[in-house]
């Protein structure tokens, strides 16, 4: 089947059917983090918890190294990944800074600047 042509938006991947399909196991694991009991079980042995949800190697590696861009590339959805971030007390500016390769302060300064334009 010929690949569909997709809209290219710089720095952005739409969470569409292709990503949803690829990331299902990862997102399902993250959905389980709505429960404190599951969060604690994950923290005791992250690798075993990933295996329980059938994550592939790429997903497992991204989770264990806590690399958000890698999780996204592996089909992770931002809202579900945020629940994993919550376990490590990462807020959205930590996550933003990590993805854009700047410090949290620099990331915050960029946001403030956007308000002055």
């Amino acid at each position, binding site marked *: 089947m010929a690949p569909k042509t997709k809209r290219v938006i710089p720095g952005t991947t739409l969470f569409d059917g292709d990503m949803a399909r690829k990331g299902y196991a990862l997102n399902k694991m993250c959905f389980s983090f*709505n429960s404190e009991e599951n969060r604690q079980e994950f923290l005791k042995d992250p690798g075993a918890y990933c295996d329980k949800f059938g994550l592939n190697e790429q997903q497992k590696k991204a989770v264990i190294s806590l690399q958000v861009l890698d999780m996204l590339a592996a089909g992770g959805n931002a809202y579900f990944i945020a629940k994993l971030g919550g376990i490590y007390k990462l807020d959205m500016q930590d996550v933003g800074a990590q993805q854009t390769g700047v410090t949290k302060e620099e990331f915050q300064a960029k946001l403030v600047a*956007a308000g002055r334009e």
Partner: protein
Amino acid sequence: MAKIVGGINVTHVPYIGRAIAGNLQQDAYWKPFFDGFPPVHAWLDKVKPDVAVVVYNDHGLNFFLDKMPTFSIGAAAEYSNADEGWGIPTVAPFKGDQDLSWHLIDSLIEAEFDLTTCQEMLVDHAFTLPLELLWPTRNAALRTVPICQNTVQFPLPSAKRCLAFGRAINKAIESWDSDARVVVLGTGGLSHQLEGTRAGFINKKFDLEFMDKLVSDPDWVTQYSNEDLVELTGTQGIELLNWLTCRGALGGKVKAVHTNYHIPISNTAAGLLAMETV
């Protein structure tokens, strides 16, 4: 018949939950945001709604990708909040309005909107925080109906479909045989992007034009595809679809009662727009 008194569109960033729980409303960071609300509180005191219909999107509390509806609606006696995993405090349940829920379900399915009906429904921060912001002292008499739109997994309903959905909600509420006064909320946005190398993207120029056009000419939004809207407002900025549905639910003409716009709250351009039906 029921009366739609107006509508309020407002951001719903989870982070706000901590500010409310910690009483930080007058801190330097939060003041420009929270100072937007007293005029809207005064308006609500004047128009005295009995019911709030809340158009929002779930962020993985009630819905997972195993059963992901485009449009869903609550039909429960009560709606509970719950642990969402990112450490914001859980708030007390909100009262439902099952008569209005079923009237909406009957009307909207007849109008060819293919709803998912929810006789139990957990409501996340996108439902609870706007209610907490608009009624800082809980209005225990207020009844609610949650209407949830998919803004999480593409394909999303188009701006055109959302506006038509809102207009069908308008017709349904106006045909409801009740003396209730109804306010419609639309929550989320405005421009922000949480993920990818474009994280932190904000578009003040578009947001301000959007808020303007939403009042005077909501069809203006339908010129954009959802891909356009993501490019213009970010992957989460697309939550403006909830604002658009809310605007549709207010019918033909409205006038702005109050607006506020502040950058940033967390990674987000925080908007507030209260409109009165005329």
